Structure formats: C-alpha cells, structure tokens
C-alpha cells in the first residue's frame, strides 16, 4: 500500500546504516535530488549505492558522496567531466567501486525484481569484467553468469504518481526508475505531481503501484 508523504524527510525516514540504496537517474535526468538531499539530512551512512553514474557536480548523488555516507558504488560509468567528488574519493581509497556494464546493471536489477536467480548474459564475455565469473556456451554462443542486484531501498524520480502508487515518467528521465522500483524492498518516489486515482490512463501506467511504497511531491519543476 502506498503512502503519500508530506515531505521528503518523511519519505526517507527509516533508511538504515549499511543499506543498499538504488538511485535512479541517468546523469541528472530522473535523479531524485530532493530524496537524496533528505537522505543526507537523515544521516544514514555506510551505504552501498547502485546508480548509473557516481555523481555530477556538487548536487544529488555527488553531495551524498561528499558527505561521506557511501562505502561502495556499483555503477556503469563513474568517470565524467564533472565527477570530481567521486574521482577524489576513489583515488584516495575512500570508496569502493564495482563497474558493471550498463545493460547488465539494468538486467541484474530486473532479475532481482522478477525472482530470477541468475542469468546467462552475452555482455562482457572475454573482457576483464567477466574475470572470475562462470561462463557457458549455449547454442553456440558464449555467456557469462550474472547475479541479481537487490536494493533495500530505491530512490527514484517520476513525473506523476497517483494515490495507488502508479507512476508515469517523462521522456528519457524514465531510464532506471521502473527497474529499480521492482528491485528494492522499499521504493520511494519523488514526483512532480501527485494525482488522484483514476487520473492516470491505466494503459499508460509504467510502474504499477504494487512496487511503490512512498510518494512525495517535490514541487512543480516545470510549467
């Protein structure tokens, strides 16, 4: 059952030290900045963060890293022109990194959400990222065995959410949100609009409300 939180602080209450937190967004598109800011205030530490990137500039995920709350990042692309917060932590040995091909990152979370125990994936065969992993030839093609990535919590951004917890997104800000929502024990969404049940077209709902535990409206980001 989905609850509508009044504030981002209320939405992130209870996230525990040591939690694995899935954080949506591709760069800044879809990044739940208000929830991350609230998580910084909330104080949970020793976190493992799963996200496509490892922070841009000084805001959002980068601010969480700068606050020293993250033990490990699992991502596809930490290195960016403005990833200086992560770069510094990494080079000084203050953060662990697991690099995962972007599609494997998505598919491993999808497996967690879908109850799949592991899957044979063709991506990365013969590369350093497959080192030490089980491989198998199936029907003449080589595959690497990949395991699910589960979250204790997912923090995602969406465009609108109804009181049932159903979510719709906007353009490429959709990215990892729908997958992460399925892969975490508790999913928390910041949305631009909270709407009434029935206001979203049942054919166009992207994330069914069953995956969403808490929603908070974070202001009209655009007209």
């Amino acid at each position, binding site marked *: 059952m989905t609850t509508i939180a009044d504030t981002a602080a209320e939405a992130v209450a209870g996230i525990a030290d040591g939690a694995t937190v899935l954080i949506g967004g591709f760069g800044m598109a879809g990044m739940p900045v208000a929830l991350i800011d609230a998580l910084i205030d909330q104080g949970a530490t020793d976190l493992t963060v799963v996200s496509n990137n490892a922070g841009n500039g000084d805001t959002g995920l980068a601010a969480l890293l700068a606050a020293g709350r993250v033990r490990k990042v699992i991502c596809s692309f930490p290195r960016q022109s403005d990833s200086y917060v992560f770069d510094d932590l990494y080079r000084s040995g203050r953060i662990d990194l697991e690099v995962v091909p972007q599609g494997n990152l998505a598919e491993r979370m999808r497996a967690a959400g879908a109850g799949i125990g592991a899957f044979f994936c063709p991506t990365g065969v013969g*590369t350093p990222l497959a080192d030490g992993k089980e491989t198998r030839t199936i029907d003449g093609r080589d595959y690497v065995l990949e395991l699910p990535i589960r979250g204790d919590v997912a923090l995602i951004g969406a465009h609108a959410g109804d009181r049932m917890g159903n979510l719709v997104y906007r353009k490429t800000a959709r990215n990892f949100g729908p997958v992460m929502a399925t892969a975490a024990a508790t999913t928390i969404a910041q949305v631009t609009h909270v709407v009434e049940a029935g206001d979203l077209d049942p054919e166009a709902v992207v994330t069914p409300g069953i995956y969403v535990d808490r929603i908070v409206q974070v202001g009209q980001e655009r007209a």
Partner: protein
Amino acid sequence: MTIEINVDRTVEHLGRGPLSRDEMAATVARDIPDGSFVNLGIGQPTQVSNHLSPSSGVVLHTENGMLGMGPVAEGDQIDPDLTNAGKIPVTELVGACYFHHADSFAMMRGGHLDVCVLGAFQVSEHGDLANWHTGAPDAIPAVGGAMDLAIGAKDVFVMMSLFAKDGSAKLVPTCTYPLTGLACVSRVYTEHATFLVGPDGVTVVETFGLTYDELATRLDVPLRRLEP
C-alpha cells in the same frame, strides 16, 4: 555481417588526401541501409547523424530509453528530461517512443538494432574491440554501455583514426588494451581506408589518398583485396 557492401572490388581513391572526420561520418552514413535502426556511440559517431537524411527512414536508438531520437536540442528545445547517451539535450521525432533501461538494453542485447557505430582504441583483425579502458593504472574504470553495444547490434561499425598519436596502428593482430567485446566488429572506417574484419581477417574495401600496397606496408595485419 548482415549489410552488403556497395562495391565488388577494392577501390583506391587516389589524387586526394585522407578523409576528414566529416567525410568519414558521411561514408558510414552512406553504408547504413534505409529504414535501419541505429545506435550512434558517444563522441565522433554522433556526427553520422548529420549525414542521414530524414527520407532515409533511419531510426536512431539511444540506450537511455528512446527510439526516434532527433537532432541536438537548441534554445527553447532544451529539456533536461530528454537527453542522449552522452547526456546532451536532444529532440524527439514524430513516431518516437520511450522505454526503461532494462527494456532498452534488452532491445540491444537481443539483436534488434541493425547497426551500432562506435569509436575504438583498437580493433583486431578478427573484430575484437577495445574501446572502454586504456588499462592505465591510474584510470578510473568506466564502461557505460560500451560492452552492451559491442555485442548487441547485428552490425557493429567502428569509426576511428587508423593510427594513434604515437604512430602505432589501431587495427592490430591482437588488442593490447582491455577488451570490450570479442569478434563483434564487422567494419572499420578510418581516414585512410575502410575495412571488413571478421573470421576471415581483414579485407580492404576502399582506400583514400594511398594505394592498397602502401596501406599494406603500414599495417601489421594481413590484408586481402575485395574481389568479385
């Protein structure tokens, strides 16, 4: 390789210099069949879109969740919720659609894209690709969608300069940089020549500003002429 080539024997374009970057992009675009679904990698490959006419029916995929991507957004078109894989604001064409990351990479991994165009540090004579990591000990590893793209499309085209800044060839017998994918590249477009690579080794399709024999002396890989 599933896309046919448009000549039946090796062509030497002499009386001219090597291709400019823009000419390389045009050459790649020329070889993409009308109606193809195409992913253009970050950086130089994005220039290929400048040479794809709307009438070609080519549909661009961006792995952050869209088919029907349009040109880079300018001015009022800029929308932070609509970017390409390089996080540059782009536009939406008529008939576009959006999907989430797992669906987007399922589309790629499942072999539904016709062509992917990537940059490279090195390509081996059998089509191994190295384009994600220099292997330098101080480099922060970052793979993004490179490995997914490498194994996903029906045809993987590489666009790169044929020689590195130190003069060494980037088309090599065996990649020395960490691999992105094994036996995944089907064509290599460079300023000096266009190559087919794969199980049969390297075939030269066209040369630009030098002869086949001149090209052969500058590379460590066995070359073959294209013959009818």
